[in-house]
């Protein structure tokens, strides 16, 4: 940032916009919560929240929708970060909801879709009226049309054809009791912006974001880690590969990519050169149909 030109870099502009959005929510909404999965986007959001309210503490709790299919490195990171920042962590547990009969396991064993009722139940129980999510518009084409302040009705549903126009930086968070707003402070960030910010801010991430050796199987053209949730099926061969994760989701449907990028600089170089979107490369759940994400979002997904 050079003073005479009065110009800021694109990263500074994005940071300023995200901080503005977070302050707007805290000023106008009663019970905000930040959805924290231990993934890189939610980690960056947490850093922005720290900056938005410094020197005060982050003035809202964080919530993890826990599918029970976790990477241990990510849960360890989550708990450490929450302790460091003195945050209150709400865990909305899918295994517990399964035990109570709120949701039923889907035939393919993935829990992506059944997270939604668990999330919505926790929102209702804690009366959260604003949920910060780390979704970005560059991720997926249904998301490209979502607002920064995205209204949800009392069933948590998104109606893409009935969104509020969003002009200037004037966000409309008004809602009736029981309704809520999903807020996406990283809307205008790209995957590469997120990585540049992680590098600039020296933000620590769960180790699985960097290249490491792992036992994997190849399935539908993607590499899945062999763990307690994924076992080689008939005809699949288990082998060792040097991989890293581009996204961190449910461990039963999040794939790794082959990579030698073991530092943030190398990851940036890799992300800048890659020709495949992060969801296309690593998410079994988004390959189901042309409108898989849109359908889940309508139901109240993140």
């Amino acid at each position, binding site marked *: 940032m050079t*003073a005479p030109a*009065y*110009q800021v*870099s*694109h990263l*500074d*502009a*994005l*940071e*300023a*916009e995200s901080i*503005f959005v977070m302050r707007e929510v*805290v*000023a106008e909404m009663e019970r905000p919560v930040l959805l924290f999965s231990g993934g890189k986007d939610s980690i960056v959001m947490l850093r922005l929240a*720290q*900056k*938005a*309210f*410094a*020197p*005060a*503490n982050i003035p809202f709790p964080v919530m993890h929708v826990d599918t029970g299919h976790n990477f241990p490195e990510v849960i360890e990171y989550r708990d450490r970060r929450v302790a460091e920042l003195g945050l209150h962590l709400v865990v909305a547990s899918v295994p517990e909801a399964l035990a109570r009969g709120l949701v039923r396991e889907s035939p393919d064993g993935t829990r992506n879709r059944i997270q939604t009722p668990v999330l919505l139940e926790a929102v209702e129980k804690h009366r959260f009226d604003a949920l910060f999510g780390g979704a970005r*518009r*560059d991720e*997926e*084409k*249904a*998301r*490209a*049309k979502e607002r920064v302040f995205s209204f949800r009705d009392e069933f948590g549903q998104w109606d*893409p*054809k009935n969104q*509020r*126009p*969003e*002009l*200037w*930086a*004037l966000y*409309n968070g*008004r809602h009736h009791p029981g309704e809520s707003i999903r807020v996406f402070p990283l809307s*205008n960030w790209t995957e*590469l*912006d997120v990585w540049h910010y992680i590098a*600039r801010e020296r933000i620590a991430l769960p180790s699985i974001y960097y290249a490491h050796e792992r036992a994997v199987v190849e399935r539908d053209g993607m590499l899945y880690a062999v763990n307690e949730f994924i076992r080689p099926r008939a005809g699949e061969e288990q082998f060792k590969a040097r991989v890293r994760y581009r996204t961190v989701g449910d461990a039963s449907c999040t*794939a790794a*990519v*082959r990579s030698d990028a073991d530092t943030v600089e190398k990851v940036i*170089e890799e992300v*800048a*050169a*890659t*020709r*495949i*979107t992060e969801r*296309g*490369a690593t998410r079994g759940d988004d390959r189901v149909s*042309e*409108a898989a994400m*849109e359908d889940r979002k309508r139901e109240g997904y993140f």
Partner: protein
Amino acid sequence: MSVETAAATPVGAGPEARRMDLLRFATAGSVDDGKSTLIGRLLYDTKSLFTDQLAAVEAVSAARGDEYTNLALLTDGLRAEREQGITIDVAYRYFATPRRKFIIADTPGHIQYTRNMVTGASTADLALILVDARKGLVEQSRRHAFLCSLLRVPHLVLCVNKMDLVDFSQEVFERIADEFTAFAAKLEVPDLAVVPVSALKGDNIVSRSPNMPWYEGPALLHHLERVHIASDRNLVDVRFPVQYVIRPQSTTVTDYRGYAGQVASGVLKPGDEVMVLPSGFTSRIASVETADGPVAEAFPPMSVTVRLTDEIDISRGDMICRPNNAPAVAQDIEAMVCWMDETRPLQVGGKYAIKHTTRSARAIVRGLHYRLDINSLHRDEAAGELRLNEIGRVRLRTTVPLLADEYRRNRTTGGFIIIDESTNRTVGAGMIVEAG
């Protein structure tokens, strides 16, 4: 799935990538003038299009029996849009070159055009209007130009597309360029560029086309990369709408009181004498802080925390400015309003909630001076209401004073939204003409 790694440092990976600036632009065009193709071309040629996105589009195109890969499918993200072959809403797209990061607000040309165009243009540094070289200017081109000038988009680019279909004719191009320039002269368009292109063939998109040696201007991308936007910011009028008061409840930080917000305009420095509105109290800036430490000065679009030397009562919605340069403190507002609600029109006597900077108020519509026909610019003074996508000049009375500037002078302190109090929907956008 392996990741392909180029030998050279890819775009966006080098250290320069952290020093790029940001340009937001809105695109507008009529149906079939090639807007989606142009966006697809920009994304493709800057390597911002991913192979899986392209493969998905190719597969859907083939399944629909399209003869060519329909790049419009890239931007049509919702099921209804794909099924009906229409674009419903503003879609945001991203690409970068080593010089700049770009955010495109892609607004559909046909349905709901005004609402979407106004939304996209409200945050745009630049607007890109497309016309088909074979058809020349159409009613919509003029409408789009008018909306850009109404929203005070500082830079306008007219792309005369499909030049390949008019044999790259200089005469055709110049006729359209002259006609548009003459029309734009009647509007307030501070900066206009006209570029002849073929989005389908790539002429004058990333590099100068050998097919049009008579064109001496830059290729489109070159223009987008270099158009000078730094001077668009208002660095003269200090306006700092207080967004949130930071008062840590902690044992380690005591007696801290900071006013958090994003600088709307002007430059704030420690030591500056300031006035706080609406109270009118004056004080001095003790420090300008960020989480990374104090800064020597703050300017748009920085989000900072301002601390003052005196303890005065300041809350959200107040405005920090300079004693000799302050916005109006006004409850009577004259504004151009674009109506965005399909269910109920704006009517004289109607009561609404409004949001202006960080301040919320209620407002009553005291008068509708005229409705503007945005094709002819004719003023209909007999109009009794504003319906969806209509624009008119309105007089409002607010419950509390707004701290407002004319929109033409300040897009941040001159714009407001109108909210229906029963549905909570955003139903209108206002641009202040006069506050007093």
